[in-house]
């Protein structure tokens, strides 16, 4: 039964891909706030009304830090759109990030008013589940970044499955608990929720449910995404994965951010995460 749902997801993906292209903007903005959420997680806020008006959940920015000595911009999903975290119309945008390397290390040190160069909107964004189809989010740690904006865009309250190594890596847990229909938590050390990987509560949730009634949307580390793919595709469950990779440009030119996918010729293709993703249907991936 893979075929029916797989082709639906692929069709939805193609429909998205042929939407009229939106102009990519390159703006210099100032940090409005850069709030530490503990354990190296931060919520960065800036305002860019023109970009905020065009951006959809699942799209991303390339953010540069002028004068920092960091050469390339870094990719970050949009976490908050206007209205996600607060009701205002001033073009507020938010990025959730964790300090992982030099780039995010410098970003974490920026105070209010510091300049950022922001390129966006980039990438395709999520395909919203049809009304009546329950969105089931699976997030691994900082992979929760794109879900607040998406939660607000869904017509049916989503189920949130939130996994991480430890309690400190669930930076938006309270927010999801108050905005999702159901929030199930798993940590590898058992410090909050059940002990183990997030796939365990996911499989339990799926048990006995008709795959036509829900759709999976996952973002997190590659091994987690592989596991979700391996659950969803054989069972014929619609599943979108939001991917991440090192990239130099963010708009399709460096071809640095590719992921192996099933090509039309039956061989592996290398698909750019930045322009053909970051959201891809799970069945397209060849890893």
């Amino acid at each position: 039964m893979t075929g029916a749902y797989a082709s639906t997801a692929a069709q939805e993906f193609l429909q998205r891909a042929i939407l009229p292209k939106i102009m990519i903007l390159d703006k210099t903005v100032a940090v409005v706030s850069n709030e530490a959420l503990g354990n190296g997680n931060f919520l960065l806020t800036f305002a860019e009304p023109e970009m905020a008006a065009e951006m959809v959940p699942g799209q991303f920015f390339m953010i540069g830090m002028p004068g920092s000595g960091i050469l390339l911009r870094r990719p970050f999903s949009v976490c908050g759109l206007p209205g996600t975290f607060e009701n205002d119309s001033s073009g507020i945008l938010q990025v959730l990030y964790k300090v992982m390397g030099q780039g995010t290390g410098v970003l974490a040190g920026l105070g209010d008013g510091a300049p950022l160069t922001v390129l966006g909107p980039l990438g395709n964004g999520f395909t919203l589940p049809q009304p009546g189809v329950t969105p089931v989010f699976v997030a691994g740690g900082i992979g929760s970044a794109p879900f607040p904006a998406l939660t607000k865009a869904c017509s049916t309250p989503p189920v949130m499955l939130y996994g991480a190594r430890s309690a400190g890596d669930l930076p938006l847990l309270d927010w999801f608990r108050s905005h999702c229909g159901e929030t199930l938590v798993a940590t590898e050390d058992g410090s909050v929720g059940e002990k183990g990987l997030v796939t365990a509560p996911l499989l339990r949730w799926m048990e006995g449910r008709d795959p036509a009634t829900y759709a999976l949307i996952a973002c997190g580390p590659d091994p987690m995404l592989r596991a979700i793919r391996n659950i969803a595709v054989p069972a014929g469950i619609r599943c979108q994965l939001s991917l991440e990779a090192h990239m130099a440009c963010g708009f399709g030119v460096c071809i640095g951010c590719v992921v192996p996918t099933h090509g039309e010729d039956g061989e592996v293709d290398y698909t750019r995460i930045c322009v053909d993703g970051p959201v891809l249907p799970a069945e397209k991936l060849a890893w």
Partner: protein
Amino acid sequence: MVTPDMTTTVAGIEFKNPVLTASGTFGYGLEFTDFLDLDRLGGLVTKGLSAAPRKGNPPARVVETPAGMLNAIGLQNIGVPSFLADKLPKLREYDTKVIANVFGATEAAYVEACRMLDGAEGLAGIELNVSCPNTEEGGMIFGVDPAALGHVTRLCRKETKLPLIVKLSPNVTDIRLMARCARDAGADALSLVNTFVGMAIDVERRRPVLANVCGGLSGPAIRPLAVWLTWQVRQAVEIPIIGIGGIMSARDVVEFLLAGASAVQVGTASFVTPSASADIVTELSNWLSERNIASVRELIGGLEVPPRG
């Protein structure tokens, strides 16, 4: 304040200004129309094209390093036929010089690609990529072996009437020897440099960061190396040089011009700031105006080396 003459000629191609974009950093040009007016550029050099499309290397393909980046894309490209059918007709609508960067796994493949491109309407020239460090089939052997370089250049020269630019590898003991070989084989101009072979290691995992193990280093980190090689080649051959290596601003352009380049290519900067190449054109014009320099050509080879001691 004068309005400076920005024109420059390389390999018989008249460029409205000396700022071109480097192969592999500017796609097929059309990806940049959100960010800049292509008409502002002296020229653009396409992503490396082969006779047939190529899928490239497995990821990870890029990583930032101090003041630069390593890439091992593996020459992923749409192939010459798709370029001619889908990209070049759209590029013809712009008033800028389009140069096709070409590579092959074998001499025959280079020749085939050049033959397919010869006579294409709207193509100003061919840049032979004999120096990609990232694939066994990327022509690197042609870039590091003087006899092989001469031979493939000569064969391509016979296949096309288009101006032929040979892009030199810096990964050689003496780049002047390679420059002479390319010139003797019929190159109209040289572009230099391609990326330097480098490697980054993930020390926690004890693995190379890039799946290809090594990659090509670009960005400001290589600029002094590239300026030095430009200066060396300038003294070895008389044919025009296009300088490449970590150009981020107009002053960087001037550095290459003084060292002997007649034009430059902006590379990694286009990843950082998509409008960088056009921004640099404006900046360079202002730079010349502020100094009352009437023509950008006055700078070419204008380096003054004081006597030692």
